[in-house]
């Protein structure tokens, strides 16, 4: 016997969590885009999406974050540190690739310096993930050795019952158990079986790709130029990616007073590694695309023993010129045969 949360009881849960002081966040369609946003009622949530256009990264690492306000005076500089808005939150209905993306980035944000903006939000947020029963052409979790029900990064895993009646509940962490204590009496015991998971075809051989990338001879391969000819160098693939984490620090204001912000940045941009001298070590789009692949599947795992990709497929789904990580790794797979 497992515990079940019936869909028609979800609104009661939302009420409970709200009364307990949690902000309830979930997948919604708003202003012609699907994203994760705060809701008042369960009816606002959309569980029919394969996955939202925007990832849950935005909730932990927003696109523009104030760090401090400053005023420069004759003798001194006044600063006023800005911390992220605090308060407990529950994300209900994350996808496994989004939840695991946050766990992939934890070591990065906690490596030499513990990023308090990231960890405060991580510690205050319960992630309730729903396993996927449908996938599209671009989903590729299985190619990254994950699955439509991977539990990495989740506090609770829900597996849908047949006929959208509800979800089987698996409590994974203390944080998850704590949040589900509030709704313990709403859950029911049942032996209903879970609906079949999405079938996600394996698209490339990850180990072969990684071996090819690690071979220093391939760094200057003609492959990079050929594969990235059509890349227009936007940041849509990095900004939608749940694991891309690059940022730039900018002062906004005049000479005397302003605000220091942490803004997203992307290795697709020509400006990304531009030196003040004007020299750019990655002066071509192909060098920038190589960086993107190398970082995700060679440098990042070299440092943190995990690939910087959860297989959500957004980079390919959204690319204006139909590129993406998938095609590149598929081609590398072929090269390494």
């Amino acid at each position: 016997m497992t515990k079940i949360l019936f869909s028609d009881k979800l609104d009661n849960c939302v009420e409970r969590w709200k009364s307990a002081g949690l902000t309830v966040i979930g997948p919604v369609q708003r202003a012609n885009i699907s994203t994760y946003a705060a809701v008042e009622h369960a009816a606002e949530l959309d569980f029919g999406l394969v996955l939202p256009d925007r990832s849950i990264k935005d909730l932990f690492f927003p696109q523009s974050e104030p760090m401090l306000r400053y005023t420069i005076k004759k003798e001194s500089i006044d600063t006023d540190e800005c911390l992220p808005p605090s308060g407990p939150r529950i994300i209900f209905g994350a996808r496994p690739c989004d939840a695991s993306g946050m766990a992939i980035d934890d070591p990065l944000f906690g490596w030499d310096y513990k990023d308090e903006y990231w960890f405060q939000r991580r510690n205050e947020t319960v992630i309730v993930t729903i396993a996927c029963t449908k996938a599209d052409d671009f989903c590729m979790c299985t190619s990254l050795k994950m699955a439509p029900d991977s539990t990495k990064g989740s506090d609770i895993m829900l597996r849908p019952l047949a006929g959208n009646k509800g979800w089987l509940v698996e409590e994974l962490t203390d944080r998850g158990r704590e949040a589900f204590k509030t709704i313990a009496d709403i859950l029911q015991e049942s032996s209903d079986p879970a609906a079949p998971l999405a079938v996600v075809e394996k698209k490339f051989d990850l180990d072969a790709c990684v071996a090819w990338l690690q071979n220093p001879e391939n760094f200057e391969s003609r492959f990079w130029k050929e594969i990235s000819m059509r890349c227009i160098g936007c940041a849509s693939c990095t900004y939608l990616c749940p694991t891309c984490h690059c940022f730039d620090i900018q002062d906004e204001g005049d000479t005397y007073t302003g605000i220091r912000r942490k803004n997203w940045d992307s290795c697709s941009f020509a400006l990304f590694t531009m030196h003040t001298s004007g020299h750019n070590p990655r002066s071509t789009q192909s060098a920038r695309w190589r960086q993107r692949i190398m970082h995700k599947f060679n440098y990042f795992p070299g440092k943190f023993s995990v690939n910087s990709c959860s297989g959500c497929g957004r980079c390919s789904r959204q690319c204006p010129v139909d590129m993406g990580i998938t095609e590149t790794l598929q081609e590398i797979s072929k090269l390494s045969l």
Partner: protein
Amino acid sequence: MSIEEQYRTRAKELLSGGAVKMVIGYGKGSNAKRRRPIFISSADEVDRLVLDDACITNLSGYLVSEGLLSDEKRVAVFLRPEGIRAINILAAESQLDAEQIVIFGFDVAGNEIKALKGINVEEFSDVIDSIKEGAPEAAEEELFEKIEKMSPQERFSFWQEEFAKCIKCYACRQACPMCYCRRCIVDSNQPQWVNTSSHTLGNFEWNIVRAFHLSGRCVECGNCDRACPVNIPLRLINHRMAEEVLGAFDHFAGTSKTQEPVLASFKKDDSETFIL
């Protein structure tokens, strides 16, 4: 022979005879609905070219890639009428030499492909004149009217909600053939003219700057609108600005390669005392 086959044959002839060094066209994409830009430099590869109703992207922007045309060799490119207009503008703004561009013109009506006759940009002026007269599609017309009827406050809220979604990925700029500046105004940081932050104010600044820079230059190819990952209806802005420029200056962008850029030219007898 289908147009796809005709164009493959023509591409083969041009490449094998050395008349062009490259053909920029469409190839199969990652699923049946998608086509992707491809670059063919060898006559043996022309069979990779695809031409059907999924070939939508305006490919003219690739022509101004750094160094592509600097050897003065010719390049062929698949273009719809909007793309052909873009060639005129790029030539008028001295970004390329139209003599170097061999056009494979086509248009899509429903799911039918129509070949457009001609090779050099001058030969397509009839096609361009005919779109000048054309009206936007009915569904869009309704939306335009709805927005026109809004009060300034309502319209402001509409755009505020839309621009709040912007993440400053600059996909709109990168996808646009007219956004060819090697260093965009928003990337200039000595001084920093425009905030880099993508908060609502910064997003307004960016989108308004871009709308002005594209006024009288945009060909309404829709590349920016389709590229925007957060579905901001950029086409509404483009269309509104195009109407404005047409009404105020009788200027329709991209009619010829010698057309003067509307916001970069002036007349001594201008009735205005102030020129923006």
